[in-house]
């Protein structure tokens, strides 16, 4: 990583890591994500990708290193403060608010940018009413990006799987982030849906001017849309570079070949 790159990075991660007991889940993880960058994070199952996201979002606190977002240190903040600072995420194992409606899931995330007083709530003050209406408008606008406005009043848990993944992205966008972390957003989708999703991810980046870090198992998708890729294995960063650099790196090939069942399906096509 050159100095020029690191000073212009929106999200600058340097050497963060965490161990669980003896297991070094993520070690010395660094990444410099520029504004509007679309970077990928790949690696075999259990490599530590989700854990890296958990460190970035404050679900776990890093034991080493530092993270800055737009120049501000965030590695010791709590998750809600990190969300307020401008990092939003989706979850690999979908974590929607199942009993809430689709609309309320997104409105909940709009919460972050609003003001909420008990008195205003109890009196239904003009401020409160206007804010609720603004939240509804914004939520509907976001839902319509993914064609989810039709099911706005459904309970989130009644949505089909693919729509739940899309709703996760909507919800994350509603926090008005600067950086969006997507954890396997295409998991369980069919090839057509994946192509659509790849388009939406790029479209979202352009429309919202976000930087995106994407964890994805589908190599085709990652290689197609990501500008740079970081590869994790056993918590270590084994390679970082452009898609073509990563594809031809012997350590990457070895890491994937080490994992029998994913070897052919995942990297076979890419190698």
């Amino acid at each position, binding site marked *: 990583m050159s100095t020029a790159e690191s000073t212009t990075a929106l999200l600058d991660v340097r050497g963060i890591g965490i161990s669980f007991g003896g297991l070094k889940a993520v070690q010395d993880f660094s990444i410099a994500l520029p504004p509007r960058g679309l970077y990928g994070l790949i690696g075999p199952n259990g490599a530590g990708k989700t854990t890296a996201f958990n460190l970035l979002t404050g679900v776990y606190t890093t034991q080493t290193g530092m993270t800055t977002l737009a120049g501000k240190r965030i590695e010791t903040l709590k998750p809600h403060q990190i969300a307020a600072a401008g990092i939003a995420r989706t979850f690999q194992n979908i974590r929607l*608010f199942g009993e809430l409606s689709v609309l309320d899931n997104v409105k909940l995330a*709009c*919460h972050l940018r609003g003001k909420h007083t008990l008195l205003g709530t109890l009196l239904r003050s*003009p401020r409160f009413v206007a804010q609720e209406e603004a939240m509804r408008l*914004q939520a509907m606008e976001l839902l319509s990006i993914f064609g989810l406005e039709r099911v706005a009043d459904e309970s989130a848990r009644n949505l089909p799987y693919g729509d739940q993944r899309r709703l996760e992205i909507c919800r994350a966008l509603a926090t008005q982030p600067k950086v969006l972390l997507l954890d396997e957003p295409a998991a369980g989708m069919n090839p057509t849906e994946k192509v659509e999703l790849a388009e939406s991810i790029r479209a979202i980046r352009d429309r919202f001017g976000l930087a995106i870090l994407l964890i994805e198992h589908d190599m085709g998708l990652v290689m197609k849309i990501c500008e740079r890729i970081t590869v994790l294995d056993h918590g270590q960063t084994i390679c970082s570079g452009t898609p073509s650099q990563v594809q031809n790196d012997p350590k990457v090939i070895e890491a994937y070949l080490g994992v029998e069942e994913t070897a052919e399906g995942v990297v076979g096509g890419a190698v």
Partner: protein
Amino acid sequence: MKTLAQHQQDVPGKVATRWDVMLLPWVACIVVALVVHFASPVLVNEYWQNVLRRVGVFVIAAVSLNIVNGYAGQFSMGHAGFMAVGAYVAGATTYYGSLLLHGSVNDPNFYYQGIGLMLGGIGLGCVVAAIAGYLVGLPSLRLRGDYLAIVTLGFGEIIRVMLELTKGQLDNAAAVKDAGAKLLIHLNGPSGFFGIPSYANLFWIFLFVSVTCLIAYRIKYSSTGRALLSIREDEIAARSMGVDLTKYKVRAFVLAAALGGVAGGLYSHIGANPSPTDAGFQRSFDVILLVVLGGLGSISGSVLAAIVLILLPEVLREAQQYRLIIFALLLIIMMIVRPKGLFGVKEIWELDWFTGWFSGKRRERKAGAK
């Protein structure tokens, strides 16, 4: 794409200031209270009016507990402790206040001042209970599930034991003046505080019932309510979306405790002598039962459960001794048939069968008209 702030700038032009939306529901609370107050004596005898007052107290207790157990999903088992705090503070305020100011308790000549003392006492009890809720709510941030249940259970038991250790009740103005601040320890120990005038008539009870329901409703359908429900649904997701867990859990505890304190304050003014057992586990369990049966998060569920379960033993007088067995059975059956309680997190008017039934009726009527 517009930000929330930009949306908000656009909105005020479209949303006029609605004084009716802001205030009419609160006025409606007074109307409800007046209607119940004047209609009940016409419809039922004094005995049932007393039952109705008890129902009202438990509606407040259940609806308030629902805020923490239902909305926020934090399983508190010490609600009776907060209620007892409210009951003793309000009861003692009225009783000792009357002695101090008037020299006797429950004198008809002192009726309106007495009502004033009761309202002041309920307000004070509400504040003290809210403070207790804050103190119990804080450790709840570090605790989850079973552990939280145990801590809150412990809180109720501590209140119970402390009340049992209090000294005998004072019964004349001179003694009260002498005691000064020590009045706090003259709460009559295990036998319970007695002689509190039964000032909380149906008007006051149902005023507080409807106000509590309105508060619970307006919180549920607001950004605060969504934040609480999101915590119950998935804490990690809620935090990652920017919900400050500390703030909202404590808010839920304080609100529930404050309104629980109000329920207690009314309880000591309906002719029920508050006693230490009212702070104990048994009473907490009674209220939890109402919330769970009605549906965690459902205001109308809590209301209905409170009405049915308080009325049931009155109707089946012979079954009184089997009360606990019947309740336990009811709970077991409910857990099998409707594990989320009667209405789940929804309100009765949001249920499919309910809306369906009404639109069906309307359709029938229309068809009939043709």
